[in-house]
């Protein structure tokens, strides 16, 4: 019995200083008291057990009460610039500030594309399946939809289909084509990029995030051909890395472009010279993005005549660019809000 009394006092003292009050119920001392019960002589068990139970209930009560009693602070004069008898609050030093590396990089990308004649748009975080799939030449039930592990909502759109968390920034293609369609009439190209957030329903690990950033590019005019796509991307990447680069295209499949390509650049970090390059695994090439000539059905869906106009589109992961640039080892850091990480940028 003395042990119970002693433990009780210890636990009550600890309760006062505990940060998470409920943790008191997990105290090893309490467990130890319970563990004693079966070891006692039969005649002592009942009284001892009752006492331990009472202590447990007392602690539970304390935790419960603590939850309910919220300290109500008095109102303050919110119109005042500082508190009574206090000096003006100090602003944190500018040196403690940081801007997220992803938004910094997107600003750099936008800047290059602005100079190349592309405007920049924003994407959405909830979209319908028409924009995510149908308008991009993925008919309903198309197997290519499986390649995009798309988050769906319980809520549905006007057609009764679930809404989606866009798995690519291409979800904005139809809107961009429509928004800038009139510029084609004055013989100006549609040229826009969309750097924004996209989502894939994937398990997290050091290389996979369910939330990441892409930059979409759309270019439509008369007589646009596939060679222009390659040249445009090469020009952008050379401006981005500030050096001459080799690029190559391999055939790929996307429903919304035809032909479709996987686009790779010569590794700008090792230039193929170093025996050990973490970025390109010493292969000398980095597969960076998907691209292609916009499928005529995508142009038609935006009421642009594919007989007269052609164009190209591309989509590039921004997180990858940032990770390669700084040698970031784990993609999860980007959305972790860890100051240890952020303050390095």
């Amino acid at each position, binding site marked *: 019995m003395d042990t119970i009394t002693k433990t009780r006092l210890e636990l009550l003292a600890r309760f006062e200083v505990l940060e*998470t009050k409920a943790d008191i119920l997990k105290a090893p001392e309490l467990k130890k008291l319970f563990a004693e019960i079966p070891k006692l002589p039969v005649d002592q068990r009942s009284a001892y057990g009752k006492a331990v139970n009472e202590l447990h209930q007392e602690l539970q009560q304390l935790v419960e009460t603590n939850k309910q009693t919220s*300290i109500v*602070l008095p*109102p303050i*004069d*919110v*119109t*005042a*610039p500082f*508190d*009574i*008898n206090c000096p003006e*609050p100090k*602003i*944190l*030093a500018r040196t403690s*500030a*940081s*801007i997220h590396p992803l938004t910094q990089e997107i600003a750099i990308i*936008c800047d290059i594309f602005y100079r190349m004649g*592309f*405007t*920049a748009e*924003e994407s959405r*975080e*909830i979209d*319908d399946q028409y924009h995510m799939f149908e308008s991009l030449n993925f008919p309903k039930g*198309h*197997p*290519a939809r499986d390649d995009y592990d798309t*988050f*769906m*909502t319980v809520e549905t*759109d006007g057609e009764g289909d*679930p809404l989606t*968390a866009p798995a690519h920034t291409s979800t904005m293609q139809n809107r961009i084509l429509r928004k800038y369609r009139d510029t084609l009439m004055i013989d*100006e190209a549609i*040229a826009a990029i969309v750097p924004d*957030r996209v989502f894939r329903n994937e*398990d997290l690990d050091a290389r996979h995030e*369910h*939330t990441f950033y892409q930059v979409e590019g759309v*270019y439509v005019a008369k007589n646009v*051909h*596939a*060679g*222009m796509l390659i040249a*445009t991307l090469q020009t952008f990447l050379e401006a981005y890395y500030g050096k001459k680069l080799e690029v190559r*295209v*391999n*055939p*790929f499949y996307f429903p919304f472009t*035809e*032909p479709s*390509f996987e686009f790779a650049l010569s590794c700008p970090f090792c230039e193929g010279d170093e025996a050990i390059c973490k970025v390109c695994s010493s292969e000398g090439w980095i597969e960076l993005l998907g691209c292609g*000539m916009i*499928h005529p059905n995508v142009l038609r869906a935006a009421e642009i005549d594919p007989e007269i106009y052609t164009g190209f589109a591309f989509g590039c992961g921004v997180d990858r660019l940032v990770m390669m640039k700084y040698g970031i080892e784990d993609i999860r850091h980007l959305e972790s*809000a860890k100051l240890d990480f*952020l*303050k390095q940028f």
Partner: protein
Amino acid sequence: MNVSLNTIKQWIDFDLPPVDELVTRINAQLGGVEKIIDLRTQYQSARIVKVLTCQKHPNADKLSVCTVDVGEGTPIQVVCGAPNVHTDMWAVWLPPGSVVPSTYGTKDEFKLDAREIRGVMSYGMLAAGDELGINADHEGIMEIDEHDLPSTVKSIQAGQAFSEVFGLDDTVIVIENKMFTHRPDCFGQLGVVREISGILGYKFTSPDWYLQKPGTYPKPTNASIPLQAFNDVTDKAARFMAVGISNVTVSSSPLWLQCALVAMGSKPINNIVDATNYFMLITGQPTHAYDADIVQKNADGTKHDELAIGVRMALPGESITLLNGKTYKLDVSDIVIANHEQAIGLAGIMGGKDTQVSAKTNNIILECANFDMYTIRKSSMRHGLFTDAVTRFNKGQSPIQTNRVLFELLKNVIGLAGGVQASEISDIISDSLKNNVESDEYHYPVTLLPQFVHTRLGLSIKKYDMVQLLKNVEFTPCEDCGWNPEDTKDDRDDWHVSVPFWRTDIHDPEDIVEEVGRLYGFEKLPRELPERSIRPVAKNPRREMKMKIRSAFSDLGANEVLTYSFVHKDTFQKAEQDHTQAFQISNALSPELQYYRLTVLPSLLDKVYGNIKAGHDEFILFEIGKGHNKKYHAADDNGLPRELEFVDAVYASKKPREGSPYYQVRQLASQFCMNLGFTCQFKPITKELDYPVTAPFDQSRSALIETREGTFIGMIGELKQTVLRSFKLPIYTAAMTLDFEGIMKAHTTAKQLYLPLSRYPSVTQDISLKVPMGVRYAEIFEVVEHTLEIVAGDKQCRLLPLSIYQSSEDKTSKTITLRVTISDMHQTLTDQQVSRYIEAIAQKTHEQLGAIHS
């Protein structure tokens, strides 16, 4: 897609380039290569040997001691535990030092040696089928008979490399499946070898049985199987074919076939099933074999008078046990293969368990059909069944190949398992497909101008060259449609390109452009930038605004973070927000991602504790992000949920500082607005508000922010004590939730005010006003400001708060001290003048607010 180079070599008459070069070309002109499997190394040591003598082991009942001719003159002694080992048999020997092929490349590679077994030396081992990684057989060692040999091999000798005789000296190139989402033909070896020929510049010719339109259908030798095929759903199954074979002998396949299946990534089962799989692997067309007697059986075990087999939709409540042994409850939108009574297979996905071909089977039905790719895909997803057949059917196989594959399969099954054709061939074709089957074409020819290809590729490729590229992969481009094939300019006439029946993906001129470009080589496209005008590009004002916001926060020492758009339900509870207003994710892999967030702030609050733990004592986190609300903004943005853009921040200090934390964020918000070129006002919340934005705040210690013109900017304040506790936040925490649209409006409409500089010195005086506690600072400030406007309106006046004092004795009042600085543009001001203004202020504040000037 596993492509066996040894398999595809049978259809080409040129030498493949070295593997490295081939892979480079495939990558560049067909699709990404995922990996290369080197079977040659896996099987490099296995040798064909002849058992010369075979005697019982002196010390073990179940072991035999054999001498084996391994082709090196002196026979080798091997101890063998297999019951089937005997003199004069041909077997496969794995010498000491070799790795057992089934363990090759695994974590537990098993390396053989020469060792004593019960007192007798054994050099290496004689291998069973499972040890060779070919089949599951572990009953005995593999015995090679004459019928096991490939047709090209007439005889074998002891010592020959096993892999060379059976084609396992192979390289398998694995191409990523997603490359072929649109290419049903490339899920067969034939489809891939055709493309390889094309990209290497050789003309490919498919085997006759696949290429040519079949003539009359084979007739039964003996119509002993009363086959009655049916197709109740021709809109879902455009073609259904079946044929019966009687008196088959089910056994294991000859070794050459087993090895061919292994090379293509499949597993041998028995001769009938292996034949169906083999034809699927080379053509992309799945087929299935059923035990005919079981299909014909009634539920009570008696024999039905006819053998009905066909396609229908599953019935309500119907279920089926499939080959994998699992039972599935069917949905009425599943297509099934059925007999007269019940479903016997999930069409296009997997056959039923009961009707499978087994060692007891005597009579079989072969089925070859074409199903709607979308329906198959849905059923596959619904039941979580992803089979080789699904992979092929959901790409849209050509219904023109169905009969070709069935005829060749029929011939080969009889060749492998004996028996005779025992029924007519049933071929039920949907009405819409009949004309295509008649004309033997899946699509009409594509018509385009040669110029169309030129402009889209930027290439001036000769028409003659385009014709050759397409002919190499068995397209039939019109060669003389009134134009000169040598000419690059002539675009007078349409060009007709006939599409081979297996290319169900080709219908538009753009598809021909892709073919030509790819076969020609995209790397040869001319790289030139588009021409553009010098018209300046308009920058996106929202993006620009966000950059300014980042910079404004940055000047205040804040850290930008990015957090997920999705949150756990708990996060709403902690922030005391109503989760029923949030859009819900239906398929998230993790519970952390159940809902779209309502506002950004709770995500930020969630990140404070970890940073404090990591040793950061005082910081500001901010994020520009979106929230969604299905109660208030379900469909108010062109039918879609409005995306509410928030500019949220939290200030936290581990150690409390002087005064309430509210004033810390007030200072922050005030400076933030000034950095963006406008000033804001802080208004007390007089009536309790109930929105996701206001939920976490202690409203008696929070304020709404507006510009002087009345544009709503947002809310700042301290958080409820319960919220602080739930997020484990330090006491000295305060936060803000601002509206991006409001900030943008305030910023863009703000006028830059310039005050000319006075040539005369300004005069500064401080005024202290003691007011009752109930009087707000803003009330005093406004009266002072207003009074100055009246009495000194022609002068420049600046007001600055200096202190708010309360003595420890009197808690009912406070003294507010303001610094008044006045300058005149035309003359030097005297102290007396300024004192008059101060007196006017004292008088006005006394009259209106009961202030006492001290």
